[in-house]
């Protein structure tokens, strides 16, 4: 079985541009919600002085990762922001000092057991750096008898423009290899596969030579097709295993971790510095000099716009890739741990939607084997049973269907509305 895919333009203009550290911003806004889980509660108050790497937010919830200050400075405000999921949550505003000092508690974690390792990953504040941002420790914390034997390292980077994972391979390849070895050892996994798209031959070559002597680590060269980096697609194309509908990769014996996350975990184990900065690609049609920037978590889009060399004023700013990224409307929006790119566009023209001509392109684009045309009819008819029968919940909003549609219909958007509708109708039914 071959999964359906689409061919996208690459626009990997920033691929061969070495990462540089952005100038320290005047202030950062650190969201207490850095991922899809439960937001953290701030541990600091207005007027407090915080140091780089200091813990400033925690939560008791399982699917949660602690938040640390990315700078040294003074807390000026505990404010509310709207996160990328459209929900409000607290954020800590910190005005930066000229002098940046690491918090005194920072030291490499002591790791003896598997539990120590998972706790260390939890304390590091690590979330998936590839975009979805699931707390890493939750993924690693699989029961020992769960049959998980394979670590899949996601370096597919299938979205156009984004090159931050590619730069991670080129600049931190050694750390990725060492990080993989640690994870394999601590969790007692049999093997690791690094999945990299074939349009990054340098990264494939580098990782192959770095893992030459590791019998249990292999590098899979994946066809450069979208959505190669989607978890289920990646697992299938690297291991041949199928993740059942509604189940997690664990059910297929796999843990999937982004390559930049692996490099971070290695760094954390060696230094104890939590997740407070990350690499982002700044690019887009109006950017003169595409760049890969190392930015502190919480830096505002405004500061990135100032650092970017643009031809004209952008009218559309994306966080993440052009296929699954989110439009932001406020330049004061802070970068979170999960943002792998900031893309700038200008002269946006609204595309006119026309009638579906039943060409079937969306049907041939869906890697999950869904029937987008039928889903659209079912949603328009508000038929939640039919939507479920058509497996609407398999849709991961990769956007391939909308991309290929000649009628420019927002099919993937409708699928998300349909998922919400199914959930709401179910809840309504339960209530009677």
């Amino acid at each position, binding site marked *: 079985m071959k999964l359906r895919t689409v061919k996208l333009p690459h626009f990997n203009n920033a691929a061969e541009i070495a990462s540089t550290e952005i100038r320290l911003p005047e202030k950062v806004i650190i969201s207490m919600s850095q991922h899809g889980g439960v937001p953290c509660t701030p541990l600091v108050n207005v007027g407090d002085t915080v140091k780089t790497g200091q813990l400033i937010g925690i939560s008791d919830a399982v699917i949660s990762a602690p938040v640390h200050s990315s700078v040294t400075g003074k807390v000026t405000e505990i404010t509310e922001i709207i996160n990328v999921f459209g929900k409000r949550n607290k954020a800590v505003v910190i005005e930066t000092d000229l002098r940046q000092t690491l918090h005194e508690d920072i030291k490499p974690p002591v790791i003896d057991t598997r539990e120590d390792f998972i706790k260390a990953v939890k304390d590091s504040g690590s979330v998936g750096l590839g975009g979805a941002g699931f707390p890493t420790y939750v993924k690693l914390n699989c029961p020992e008898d769960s049959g998980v034997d394979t670590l899949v390292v996601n370096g597919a980077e299938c979205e156009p423009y984004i090159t931050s994972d590619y730069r991670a391979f080129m600049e931190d390849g050694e750390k990725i290899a060492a990080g993989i070895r640690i994870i394999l050892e601590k969790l007692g996994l049999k093997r690791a596969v690094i999945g990299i798209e074939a349009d990054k031959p340098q990264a494939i070559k580098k990782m192959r030579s770095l893992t030459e002597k590791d019998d249990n680590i292999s590098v899979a060269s994946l066809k450069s097709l979208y959505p190669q980096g989607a978890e289920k697609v990646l697992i299938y194309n690297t291991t041949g295993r199928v993740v059942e509908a509604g189940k997690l990769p664990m059910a297929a014996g796999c843990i999937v971790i982004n390559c930049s996350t692996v490099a971070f975990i290695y760094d954390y184990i060696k230094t104890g510095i939590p997740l407070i900065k990350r690499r982002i690609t700044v690019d887009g049609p109006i950017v003169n000099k595409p760049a890969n920037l190392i930015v502190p978590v919480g830096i505002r889009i405004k500061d990135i716009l100032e650092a970017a060399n643009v031809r004209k004023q952008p009218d559309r700013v994306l966080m993440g890739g052009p296929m699954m990224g989110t439009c932001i409307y406020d330049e004061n929006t802070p970068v979170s741990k999960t943002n792998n790119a900031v893309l700038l566009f200008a002269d946006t023209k609204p595309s006119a939607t026309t009638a579906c001509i039943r060409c079937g392109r969306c049907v041939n684009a869906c890697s999950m084997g869904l029937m987008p045309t039928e889903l659209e009819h079912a949603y328009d008819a508000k038929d939640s049973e039919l939507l479920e029968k058509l497996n609407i919940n398999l849709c991961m909003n990769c956007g391939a269907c909308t991309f290929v549609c*000649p009628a420019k219909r927002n099919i993937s958007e409708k699928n*998300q509305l349909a998922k919400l509708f199914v959930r709401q109708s179910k809840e309504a039914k339960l209530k009677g």
Partner: protein
Amino acid sequence: MNNFLIEPSPHIKSSITTQKVMLHVIIALFPAVVAGTIIFGLRALLLVVLCATFCVLAEYIFNLITKRKQTVSDLSAVVTGILLGLNLPVSLPIYMAAIGSVAAIVVVKQFFGGIGQNFANPAITGRIILMLSFASYMTTWSEPFWYMNSGVDAVATATPLAMAESELPSYLDMFLGLRAGCIGETCIAALLLGGIYLISLKLINPVTPVAFIGTVAICTALAGGDVLMEIMSGGLVIGAFFMATDYATTPLTTKGKLIFAIGCGLITFLIREFGTYPEGVSYSILVMNIVTPQIDKFTMNKPFGVKKEAKQK
């Protein structure tokens, strides 16, 4: 504060549009129009152009009267018109072509909701309406190059499907289209050129023409007929490449298209072999158009990671 535009993802889209798809189909039909004009004269070109014009006008006026959004710019009416024109005998009176065009667009397409909503192929149904209404005009065929014999009107002759074996044209003549028939159906070379163009641009799925023509070929061979002659006769090639591949009226998945095409091939063969009509391509496509929703229902793609038992519950 600087506010930016927001929209749902994805934020980039392919450059293909409905209009471009239709434009490519028009380009693909161009060789057949040229061949038809060379073989059957300028009147053939006039008929095709008029059909396209009538179709566009019909859609434009219908949208105007019913206060719908104007859709003629998607060029689908032009495609319908050209296809209908190519499926008419060159001697057909203009007013009949006009009736066929209006029926195709208004009755078959617009009454059902316009582009993408019609269940039957407009051009084919338009042709069938004309066949039923003006049977003798629709089966009066002209010899190739009749217009070169000065002073002679279109000379009635039989199509190869209705000919005795001794009168049949050679394979080469059949391939080049030098035989009596509808304007655009005779020149196999031109139709193949257009078909390959559409396949190479991935605008049509090759499964449909291959399975359609293949089924007719296999059935003919089993019945002991002349396979090549059967394939190149009538409207099989134009039907298989340009009508049975219509998006709106045929199944969505490759599996569905395969069933559709085999069905078309079987019905075509049965009508040709046992029916009272010499030709069955139009009817076969129309019948399969009607069962397309049913085919669609049981040929859906298999969702990833969904077990069969779970599906039946």
